[in-house]
């Protein structure tokens, strides 16, 4: 089982994501300026800095303990729409891994789905509402389809699909989140949450295998 993902690998994932968001905070905020309130980069960066602080000062003996702490930290520090959404994602993602002996592509796929179900339960987004869900939905599907080819293939397929989903948000008219207030004027701008979600999956592909 060379494929099994360890707690250490998850920690590397989260730190890689934190770094990516930190480096792209200006870009994410810029995207949020166009159709939101100019804070998505700041929000995510603040929350992920807190997460890194937690990772640096705590040891975790199980993925579910790790992700419970990560989820709660995001809920408690991000605020806005992305705080409860990313927070809920990680809480559910961790729960799904509870008691799982060895985390391979199948287990990871289930955990991703559980996390995204949490996002939908919280935010009630549907496909093409122009939210982070438009990156998540195709990513889940691609992951499952490539799962049989191994974790690396699945993660890389998910990241590519997320990127496509993210790009496709540009042409959508927003129906959820702040961008929905803009009506027609939301068309032509890429969704910031779908952008950070794509970063999360790209970080996973870069660190979990």
């Amino acid at each position, binding site marked *: 089982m060379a494929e099994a993902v360890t707690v250490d690998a998850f920690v590397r994932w989260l730190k890689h994501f934190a770094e990516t968001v930190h480096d792209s905070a200006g870009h994410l905020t810029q995207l949020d300026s*166009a159709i939101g309130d*100019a804070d998505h980069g700041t929000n995510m960066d603040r929350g992920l800095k807190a997460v890194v602080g937690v990772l640096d000062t705590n040891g975790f003996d199980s993925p579910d303990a790790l992700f419970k702490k990560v989820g709660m930290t995001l809920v*408690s520090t991000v605020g806005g729409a992305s705080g409860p959404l990313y927070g809920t994602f990680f809480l559910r993602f961790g729960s799904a891994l509870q008691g799982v002996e060895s985390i391979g592509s199948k287990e990871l796929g289930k955990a991703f789905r559980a996390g995204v179900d949490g996002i939908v339960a*919280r935010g009630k987004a549907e496909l093409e509402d122009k939210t982070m869900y438009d990156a998540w939905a195709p990513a889940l599907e691609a992951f499952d389809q490539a799962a049989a080819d191994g974790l690396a293939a699945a993660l890389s397929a998910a990241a590519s699909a997320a990127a496509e989903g993210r790009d496709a948000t540009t042409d959508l008219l927003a129906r959820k989140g*702040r961008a929905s*207030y803009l009506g027609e*004027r939301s068309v032509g701008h890429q969704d910031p949450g779908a952008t950070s979600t794509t970063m999360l999956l790209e970080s996973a592909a870069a660190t979990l295998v």
Partner: protein
Amino acid sequence: MKKLINDPADVVKEALRGMEAAHRDHVRVDHDHAIIYRLDAPRQGKVGLISGGGSGHEPMHGGFVGTGMLDAACAGEMFTSPVPDQMMEATKQVDGGAGVLHIVKNYTGDVMNFEMAAEMAAADSGIEVQSVVTDDDVAVQDSLYTAGRRGVGVTVLLEKIVGAAAEEGRPLQDVADLARSINDQGRSMGMALTSCTVPSAGKATFDLADDEMEVGIGIHGEPGRKRLPLAPAKDVAAMLVDPIVGDLPYQQGDSVIAFVNGMGGTPLIELYVMYNEVAQILDKAGITVARSLVGNYMTSLDMAGCSVTLLKVDDELVGLWDAPVDTPGLRWGCSDHG
């Protein structure tokens, strides 16, 4: 970016320190949780009222904490809803045994964070919590399939009126019902002459030419529904009032509280010019202004612009409006700190 601040990351924290220092006679501040409390909270037997939201809208909400209005306000980061921990903590601190009402403006983030807090508070402490979500902004098309309308100006009026009802000792259900009926009777619309600048972003959220304005804006610097050529106050007033009056059918002789709110960068003299126009439109429409409020009460950082809110009122609401209020941001009547 030109602002009277230090590090952009510290603005909210430092403003809370300054607010506390300036208003020790009205509030105390829990800086760990960024919560502003009424000095005498919790009040036994009184329904606790808490609100909160992103910072950058001062005096809302922290400035509305005090006798006759809120028991606590949770301050989020700039334009970012507060986190559930804050609302949970505030809920526990202000509960005087009669339950707690959460006053939430309808933004995805605010709604979700308050929701999580209410769930946690119920599980954790068994405190009875009800929530009312304000969504009075007629600039946004309402629909089952969208995030719905934004909560804007009616929130200020609601906090005042519901605050008076809670002060009278009314039970939670009554207070919550009253809050919802106020939200149903209130409508708002706003416009901007300039964008605001979020300190951490460092530059204006949107660019607007010298001869343009945004109509149908919210309070977070998000662009509006349309960009139009700059117009005189008279026309701006009509653009804001007409959709409000059209949205909630008015009859001749209806009474309202008329609220002209500045977005932070607009001086009072211009708000009076606007109010003069609004009052004339209402007069022509046969709508009676029972009470009015004019000033910078729900701001959007340094944005120049204004919003208009009309709230249909009956004698009961006017009575509650007139009841004493004693907060940093809104004050009248004979207040009794006893």
